[in-house]
């Protein structure tokens, strides 16, 4: 044991030393153990420190290696970057050089591709064409308009030419068509309404094509019959369409009408096609057409559907979808389609020989009748005075002559007499009347004034002057065709009397402004 030897020497007696040894033995042993443990720990610390140092050295070596690696990689990165830049510059240069070469070959390549595989080219370009055009229109509308204009113009011209040709053919056919009372009535009726025959011809020449016909029950929307002309006729889905059409009608009625049955949808237009709907009590007829329907179209539909009701009203009302409950209406529908599709207006028949003869005969008879009527009229007029006397002459002859002599007797009855004597009728009548009424005093005076005043009219609107002088003042105008009475004549001037709004007026006008009517 080393513990006792380690204790400090003391001057105490041996007993004390023994007691002390006994008392501290345990502590000494414990102290010794602790010293050993401390030694072990110090050893362990030294070893761990050694290991840590070694590890730190290793790590440091690694760090150094990594740093070296990083530096090396950085160097390489710089080299790569410079190489990349070089490559980029090379590519740019090459692409710039390539563009002219590719441009040269591109058009030929595209051409070849289009020639070799047009479908593939169309497939490839198709999806972007619409967008490309839209973008181009957005960005440069004017250029696109200029580019597309010739195409559109040609297309429109072509369509218009076709339409015009068709219209012209229809009008020609119509002009050669049957001359019927109905056509005459239409023409006359249109004329009365201010529609010229040419417009009527154009209106009648506009074509109308029947596409499909649907006969549908009102309330249920069940399809009773369907007939389609067009290739795209909806034969398979006609029952669905019938139902939806009914639903749309109901929707329109409930939304825009007052909900009553009288407010129903009569027509639907979409694109070039229209659905003409003719309704009746239990069923309605929907006709899909293109073009402009003739004026009798609806009337024909109405007549058809009315006939159906007259014949099959109970069946139409009670129909629940079983075709055995109702007669086959498709033939009727086909017949209607044939009637309104190949209408008389669409294919008018030319005038037959018999009709031409009838027209010629009718014209000749009309001319003969007119000639006979004229002859009879002339004969009647000539013989009328002999048969019944001249009722118009007596009042003019007597009363107008009697007041005038004071004015007309003196001046110039002679010149007026010469002018008025020219008409052939007056002299023939005067002899018969004058002897009876004024037998004695002045036969000349009575004859001249009677003829002049009544028949002279102005041949134009003429200024009236207060003196027979061109420099004299004008104070009014006599309108054209005014009846005047010549009172006095001086050289080229005549003093006339006429009746205006202001009453009887007088004034001077040149003689050449008055003439006798034929």
């Amino acid at each position: 044991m080393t513990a006792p030897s380690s204790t400090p020497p003391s001057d105490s007696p041996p007993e004390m030393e023994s007691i002390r040894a006994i008392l501290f033995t345990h502590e000494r042993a414990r102290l010794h153990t602790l010293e050993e443990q401390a030694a072990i720990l110090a050893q362990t610390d030294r070893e761990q420190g050694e290991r840590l140092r070694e590890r730190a050295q290793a790590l440091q070596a690694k760090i150094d290696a990594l740093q070296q690696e990083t530096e090396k990689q950085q160097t390489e990165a710089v080299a790569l970057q410079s190489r990349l830049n070089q490559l980029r510059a090379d590519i740019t240069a090459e692409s710039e050089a390539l563009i002219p070469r590719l441009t040269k070959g591109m058009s030929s390549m595209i051409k070849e591709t289009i020639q070799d595989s047009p479908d593939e080219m169309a497939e490839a370009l198709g999806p972007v064409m619409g967008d490309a055009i839209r973008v181009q229109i957005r960005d440069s509308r004017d250029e696109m308009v200029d580019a597309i204009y010739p195409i559109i113009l040609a297309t429109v011209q072509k369509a218009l030419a076709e339409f015009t040709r068709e219209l012209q053919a229809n009008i020609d056919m119509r002009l050669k068509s049957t001359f019927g009372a109905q056509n005459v009535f239409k023409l006359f009726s249109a004329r009365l309404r201010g529609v010229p025959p040419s417009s009527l011809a154009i209106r009648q020449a506009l074509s109308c094509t029947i596409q499909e016909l649907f006969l549908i029950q009102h309330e249920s929307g069940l399809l009773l019959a369907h007939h389609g002309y067009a290739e795209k006729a909806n034969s398979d889905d006609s029952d669905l369409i019938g139902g939806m059409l009914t639903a749309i009608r109901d929707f329109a009625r409930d939304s825009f009408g007052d909900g009553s049955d009288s407010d129903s949808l009569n027509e639907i237009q979409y694109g070039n096609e229209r659905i003409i709907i003719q309704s009746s009590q239990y069923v309605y007829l929907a006709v899909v057409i293109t073009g402009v329907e003739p004026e009798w179209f609806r009337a024909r539909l109405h007549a058809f559907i009315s006939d159906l009701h007259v014949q099959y009203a109970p069946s139409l009302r009670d129909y629940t979808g079983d075709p055995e409950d109702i007669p086959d209406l498709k033939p009727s529908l086909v017949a209607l389609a044939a009637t309104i599709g190949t209408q008389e207006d669409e294919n008018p028949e030319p005038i037959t020989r018999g009709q031409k003869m009838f027209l010629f005969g009718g014209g000749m008879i009309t001319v003969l009748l007119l000639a006979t009527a004229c002859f009879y009229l002339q004969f009647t007029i000539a013989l009328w005075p002999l048969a019944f006397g001249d009722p118009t002459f007596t009042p003019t002859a007597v009363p107008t002559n009697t007041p005038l002599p004071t004015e007309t007797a003196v001046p110039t009855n002679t010149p007026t007499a010469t002018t008025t004597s020219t008409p052939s009728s007056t002299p023939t009548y005067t002899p018969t009347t004058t002897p009876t009424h004024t037998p004695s005093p002045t036969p000349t005076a009575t004859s001249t004034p009677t003829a002049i005043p009544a028949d002279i009219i102005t041949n134009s609107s003429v200024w009236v002057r207060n003196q027979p002088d061109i420099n004299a003042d004008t104070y009014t105008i006599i309108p054209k065709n005014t009846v005047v009475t010549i009172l006095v004549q001086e050289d080229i001037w005549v003093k006339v009397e006429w009746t205006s709004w202001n009453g009887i007026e007088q004034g001077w006008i040149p003689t050449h402004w008055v003439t006798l009517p034929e």
Partner: protein
Amino acid sequence: MKRIIQKKVCLLGDFAVGKTSLTRKFVEGRFDDRYLSTIGIKISRKRLEMDTYTLNLLIWDLVGGANFSKSSAKHLHGAIAALIVCDLTRPETLDGYKFYAEQMRAVNPNAALIFAGNKSDLVDERLISDEKLQIISKQLNGSYLDTSAKTGFQVETAFHWMAEQIEI
């Protein structure tokens, strides 16, 4: 060639019970669902081959719920049967059975009624018992079946039941 008989039937039920889904997969149609939101109707066709005739069921799918109006009721005219649908996960849609049945019977007292509880595939979310559905259907003088538009469970059966109940 068998004669083709067309019959108008209606598809009724509250909003989002799955009516349109029932018709979408199992019937022929050319009209888009948008018709339902615009004019309130979409018509499809179910062609069923019977022994002596071909039956074309013209299915008028009417918009339901609050949008079912007086004018919607007009579309029931001429319908010979109706498929009335509720959502098994929404108990409030069960009230539609009575409402639509009355609407239908007001127009056609003899109309055949088939009641369907849709969305039967959502087993965990089901809130209406089968017993209750059977009782209500019987009270309204109709037949009941579970359906699932998602899995197609009994959808064909519903149309066949309807066809069998239609008197030709």
